[in-house]
């Protein structure tokens, strides 16, 4: 995930440098943390919808911060004002920083104009998670979806972002697809900006 701070103790957050520390955290450390996150939220809800919502919110908070940080760090203080720009930002920059790799694919929805899909063969958060049958189509990728939504929403592209399992023929594991459905105002603005 986001690089953890230097070992050196600072009296104050504001003194820490924002330099792109390439620190990485251990995967299993994260996995356990995430697992706890999910379990905690599980205790707070009484249906899957809420659980997804909570995970998404958790992700959203990450998204907000990641956006600001990365635009400052990676993009040299340029904002993304265009749809494709922000999408590729999510697909490449954000993914790279969060998951150490660029997302597998970024596609445009075929039937709907306002739908885009980021697909990942094995989402990092889902690597160790197998969802029990009785939870149906629940996908912990909701967290990542939340991150994406956080980034998009704060960059001024409000969208509904959901994570889905999409079975791939020839593999027994479905891949996770993050479906982004932009609000119409975004499309209108795109049209205006030409």
């Amino acid at each position, binding site marked *: 995930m986001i690089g953890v701070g230097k070992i050196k103790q600072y009296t104050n957050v504001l003194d*820490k440098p924002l330099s792109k520390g390439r620190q990485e955290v251990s995967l299993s450390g994260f996995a356990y943390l995430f697992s706890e996150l999910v379990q905690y939220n599980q205790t707070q809800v009484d249906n899957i919808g809420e659980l997804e919502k909570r995970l998404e919110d958790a992700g959203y908070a990450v998204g907000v911060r990641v956006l*600001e940080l990365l635009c*400052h760090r990676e993009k040299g203080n340029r*904002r993304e*004002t265009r749809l494709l*720009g922000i999408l590729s930002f999510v697909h490449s920059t954000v993914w790279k920083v969060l998951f150490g790799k660029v997302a597998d694919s970024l596609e445009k929805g075929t039937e709907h104009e306002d739908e885009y899909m980021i697909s990942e063969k094995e989402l990092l958060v889902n690597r160790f998670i197998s969802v029990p049958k009785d939870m149906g189509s629940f996908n912990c990728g909701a967290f990542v979806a939340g991150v994406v939504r956080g980034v998009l929403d704060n960059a001024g592209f409000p969208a509904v972002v959901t994570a889905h399992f999409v079975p791939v023929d020839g593999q027994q594991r479905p891949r996770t697809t993050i479906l982004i459905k932009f609000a119409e105002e975004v499309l209108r603005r795109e049209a205006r900006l030409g």
Partner: protein
Amino acid sequence: MSSTACFMIISRNDIPIYEAEVGTAPKKEEAAHQHQFILHAALDVVQDLAWTTSAMFLKAIDRFNDLVVSVYVTAGHILLIFVTHTRLMLLHDSRNDDGIKSFFQDVHELYIKILLNPLYLPGSRVTSSHFDTKVRALARKYL
């Protein structure tokens, strides 16, 4: 000579989350209010302008009488807005532009640090006193 300047950080939903009168001029209540009103009005212009460029720093996007509004729109559409007197601008126009710009950039960094604080709820007021002092220091440095 005295300069009046009002600096604010406006959250995405147009709520000020930080405000500071960083002018050297003696503080006057209604003057401050006036500044804020101007800034509030300027938001309209910004929200259109912000989408025409990908640059963060938009200089002198609006003015009322002799007050000029400069804006720095972060990626998260947090506005760092800023009102100064033209007079001051006129005096040293050449380098003060980038003075303001670098001021904005530094404050932006500070803001990001604030944002990264997990205990800070994005979109809520910035109450950190360190932040305040640092911002004022920057203001003295650049403006």
